């Protein structure tokens, strides 16, 4: 796989680990898949670029393992790690905002890519929603980093999440409207991001042409 690096964004790993990952993709039964999943999870929590696309490499390894020997060691360990990190998310957020944001990005990416019979993993639906709801809390809305993460994930997986639990999505958007309208001290950037996501969802998870023009074209002063 010559374009392996670009596809899976593994440039940030050291060479030894890169080789480990490449082998895992081709011959999963020859490597310690538990170790591989830990390597991927650990890196996802540190590296924002990687966390945005780590789901894809996870999916490929899961498929490869299932095809080679019908195993699911990798997926089992990945989900266990994700679950552990999820349980500890409040502490993570207090310790490091960046790690928290990376975690949310990663779990949403896994939700996006790791499908089961072409359906999203039901087990991840509520955890992902819990993360979104947390990001919609007043203290998080005050951090542009967290608002940015929230809207990015909603752009990527909002429609899928809504299909899995529309009521929860409604609950989330009540919070977002409240935040947009009432939260004092919200930065203009945060308000812009929130307004855009409100319009995005209202438009059926896409922007109208005019809204697209408003938010995405260059403004001449």
């Amino acid at each position, binding site marked *: 796989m010559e374009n392996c690096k670009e596809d899976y964004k593994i440039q940030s790993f050291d060479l030894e680990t890169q080789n480990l990952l490449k082998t895992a993709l081709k011959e999963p039964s020859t490597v310690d898949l538990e170790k591989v999943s830990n390597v991927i999870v650990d890196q996802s929590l540190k590296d924002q*670029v990687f966390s945005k696309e780590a789901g894809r490499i996870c999916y490929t390894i899961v498929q490869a393992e299932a095809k080679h020997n019908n195993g699911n060691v990798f997926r089992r360990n990945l989900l266990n790690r*994700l679950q552990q990190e999820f349980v500890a998310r409040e502490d993570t957020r207090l310790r490091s905002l960046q790690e928290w944001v990376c975690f949310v990005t990663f779990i949403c990416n896994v939700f996006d890519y790791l499908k089961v019979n072409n359906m999203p993993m039901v087990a991840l639906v509520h955890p992902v929603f819990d993360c979104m709801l947390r990001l919609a809390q007043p203290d998080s809305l005050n951090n542009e980093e967290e608002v940015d993460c929230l809207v990015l994930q909603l752009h990527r997986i909002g429609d899928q999440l809504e299909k899995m639990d529309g009521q929860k999505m409604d609950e989330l958007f009540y919070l977002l409207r409240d935040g947009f309208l009432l939260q004092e001290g919200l930065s203009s950037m945060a308000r812009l991001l929130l307004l855009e996501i409100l319009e995005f969802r209202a438009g059926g998870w896409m922007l109208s042409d005019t809204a697209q023009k408003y938010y995405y074209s260059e403004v001449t002063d």
Partner: protein
Amino acid sequence: MSFRHKSRRTDADYNGDENRNRGPLKRYNYWKRVADGSMRSNEDMDSTSDLKKSNVNHRRTDIRPVSEGPVPRCMDWEREVETDEMCSSVCCDMQRYRRRTLATEFGPREQKNSSGSSDSRDSPVPGEVMEEDEEVLMRRQKQITYGKNTLAYDRYIKEVPKHLRQPGVHPKTPNKFKKYSRRSWDQQIKLWKVKIHAWDPPSPGGQYEVDLDDVMDIELDFPELDSDSSAQPPKVSKASSSQAVSSLSSLGIFEGNY
């Protein structure tokens, strides 16, 4: 629009910090420049409908609480995913089986390998009631999966392609959609697994060994449509076990699909 298409589009907009530099939200640059004062005044916003104002006031006391604390929704994500996976594959199987039922009922010419009415392949007897209880199907599927997740089964399917299977000689997966009593089904599974053992990888000691303990004290039970378990079936002793296996096959217990 498919999910993939949508996410590709949004990925292009949002993928990575490099896009941030190109400014997907172009308005941001404008806002940054005017952030210090020349934004639209609040008066403009307030001049919109009274309805909005009253909603705002109402909302102020109506902030929704969200569940506190990192509480996991379920015990084990992986177990939940595995169960879901089995559930949806059972559903797929059921749809496929139903389609075959319809094909049998309404168009024998639609069957691919029809060899007459005595073909006990997958096609069910038209009008036959099929097992639809989800709990039962899941349990049966789990038993089948355990049997198939073996080296012996792997070797078996590699050695004998399905179209070359001889009924009675080659093990055939019990058909989970047919109505059987619990006991009948469990025995079919047991016997099926015993037959698969014939393809066990050779042990250091000897050749292909069938573990005769598996066939000890098999209670013969004929396929039933109801769960009548009051009948006393004859017991089979160890000595005639191998005979029992082949004679059971000839009884046609192993109907069903792979």
